[in-house]
């Protein structure tokens, strides 16, 4: 019995230490929550999508329709100087278009607000949404997700003169996040005493933050990094208080498209194109490895 207790204590201590040593990405409560459909062994060649498949319908239409955010600097944003959408998620969308058409420009991007992502997928107005879309069980009841293509975590953005170090220090203060986002729910869960202010877009939060109409913004670290780049008087602080595994959202009626997209992601993660895109947009945050996909089947 003593030996068993020692063994149990050792296992617990090891597990605790392993958890504590994880850098910025916190552990999941349930690892399988992000599991998706396994991709086929080989990807069809561009412009040769299998007959009857969703990809073939997209190929016949002549363009891939993807919902992307337009207000997340470095992720999905309209560059006013070029009038083009740019960012990490936009490049992911281009990679999907290239996989179907062999041409990344066969792409129609629709800007989506956080609250519109699921309704647009369900209404069939977009083929997929690539927009810092956190995979969770509730959303999976309504739509399908690809495997994880980026692992993020929720932090806070405060004014440079703010003493706040974490979400726990923001009790009674106004903390902004877009309506309907997991970030908004995350704030309420992490600190119910914080005053949640909801907007349509992240940039609306930033504009209010710059005008001191809110005290902080809380969302995923990559989004906050993009916001901080636009305001020299802001800083990102605190440990992540939630795990935000990003997936590509698609319709529940199109499992073939989900498998295809997972295939493209596997290829991107293995051939170095994922890392190239990451370095281009988030290189300043430090090097990281692409997350590994997990599958249901």
């Amino acid at each position, binding site marked *: 019995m003593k030996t068993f207790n020692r063994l149990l204590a050792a296992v617990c201590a090891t597990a605790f230490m392993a958890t504590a040593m994880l850098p910025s990405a916190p552990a999941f409560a349930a690892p399988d929550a992000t599991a998706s459909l396994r991709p086929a062994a080989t990807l069809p060649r561009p412009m040769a999508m299998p007959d009857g498949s969703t990809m073939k319908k997209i190929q016949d239409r002549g363009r891939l329709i993807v919902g992307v955010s337009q207000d997340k600097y470095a992720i999905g944003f309209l560059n*006013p100087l070029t009038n083009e959408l740019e960012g990490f998620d936009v490049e992911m969308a281009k990679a999907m278009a290239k996989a179907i058409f062999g041409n990344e420009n066969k792409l129609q991007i629709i800007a989506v607000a956080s609250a519109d992502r699921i309704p647009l997928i369900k209404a069939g107005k977009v083929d997929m949404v690539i927009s810092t879309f956190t995979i969770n069980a509730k959303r999976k009841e309504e739509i399908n997700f690809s495997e994880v293509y980026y692992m993020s975590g929720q932090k806070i953005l405060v004014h440079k003169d703010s003493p706040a170090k974490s979400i726990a220090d923001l009790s009674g203060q106004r903390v902004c996040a877009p309506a309907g986002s997991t970030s908004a729910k995350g704030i309420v869960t992490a600190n119910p005493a914080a005053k949640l202010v909801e907007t349509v877009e992240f940039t609306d939060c930033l504009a209010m933050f710059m005008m001191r109409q809110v005290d902080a913004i809380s969302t995923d670290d990559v989004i906050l990094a993009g916001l901080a780049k636009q305001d020299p008087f802001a800083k990102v602080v605190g440990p992540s208080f939630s795990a935000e595994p990003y997936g590509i959202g698609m319709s529940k009626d199109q499992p073939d498209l989900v498998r295809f997209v997972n295939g493209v992601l596997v290829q991107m993660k293995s051939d170095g194109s994922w890392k190239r895109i990451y370095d281009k947009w988030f290189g300043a945050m430090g090097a990281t490895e692409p997350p590994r996909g997990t599958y249901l089947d």
Partner: protein
Amino acid sequence: MQAPNNSAVINSKSNGKIKGMMGTTPGQLRLGMFAIFILAICFAIAGYVGVNGARSSVNTIARDAVPSIVTAQTVRVKLLQMDSLAAQEFLAGGADSGAQARVKYEAVRKELGEQLTVAAKNISFGRDEQTPLETLMDKVQAYNGLVEAARANNRQGFPVGAAFLRMASTMLHNEMLPQTQAIDQLNVKQLESEYSNFKSASVIHIGFIVASGLALLVVLGYMQLFISKKMRRSFSMPLLAASAVVVALTAYSTVSMTLQRSNLGTAKETSFVSAYNWLEARGAAYDAKTDQSLFLIALGAGAKYEESAKVKVQKLTVSATGNEQGSSANALSALRNYVQQDERIRTYDKTGKRSEAVNLALGNGTQEAQKAFDDLNQALTANLKTATSSFDASIASAESNINYLDLVFIILSLAVVALGYFGLTPRINEYRA
């Protein structure tokens, strides 16, 4: 015994005196002259009050209420124009059309400042009008600040610029336009009440002039008959001249004041209504153009701006239809062309051709949206000019209809008094001899 009441004694004395006068021919002549004097004064007062009342209504309507309404509406249009130009500049980014939009924005901002000064000088309702104006002036500064923040961030390629622009536009619609509406409504209320009072008062004034003129004529006619019967004299020429003056003045003033009423009615019910509608149409046109730009800036997530633009176009159609002043046909034709270009923009945008959509929205070519908008704006501005010119002309006519009429009333009424005096005094003197 109780002493008799003093006033009763005086009344009985004056009654006795009048009875005494009524009993003799010279007494009756004196009474007739007195009646002519009194009625001539009444006639003069009725004319003076009627003419001045009418003139005051013209002044209140044409120099106070309507200019305040037009100023409030012009401020509204300028605000919407600024919003449209700010969105256009943002959409154009670093392109030439963006720089042009900025130059126009600054010009309109200056014009807005001038209009606000005009509005401040024309305050007629104290705090009720001053408060919204002060709020508006304050918000204009805040609005410009937000637009500047949008520009500064846009120039650095930061997406937060679009958020500042949306914030500015929302503030303009939710906090600034209601202030212009408040000023507008105060003055519209005043206009309606003044016009309604004028319409009923002018009938009463004309009625008083006619009644006092007729009463004067009756007395003059009676005295004429009296002289001819009692004194076996032919008609008294001065009394005849006095009667002619009263007839002419009554007829002339009745016609003039009726014409003035009609001209003011045309100014208010036709020209002003048309001008107001054209101003509203211009505002709706700028608003629709802003929605078009915001729709494109929202990159496919602008469904609410598309819906909003449809509402503005509908409002514009209603405002531009059936106006008696200005050409509704021209405006509606220009609007149809604009709507066609607008639909092309949305089709491009929805089929992934964003660059084409933006180029079409900013383009000045024959079949491009900016040109279509400029044509529409030009048609609306021309119609507004027609309606305001017509309003000014009707007001000028209304004023000229009663020009100096109050003075004429006083002078001619004094002439009637003098003629009455000269007509009856020789007859009274005959009895002295």
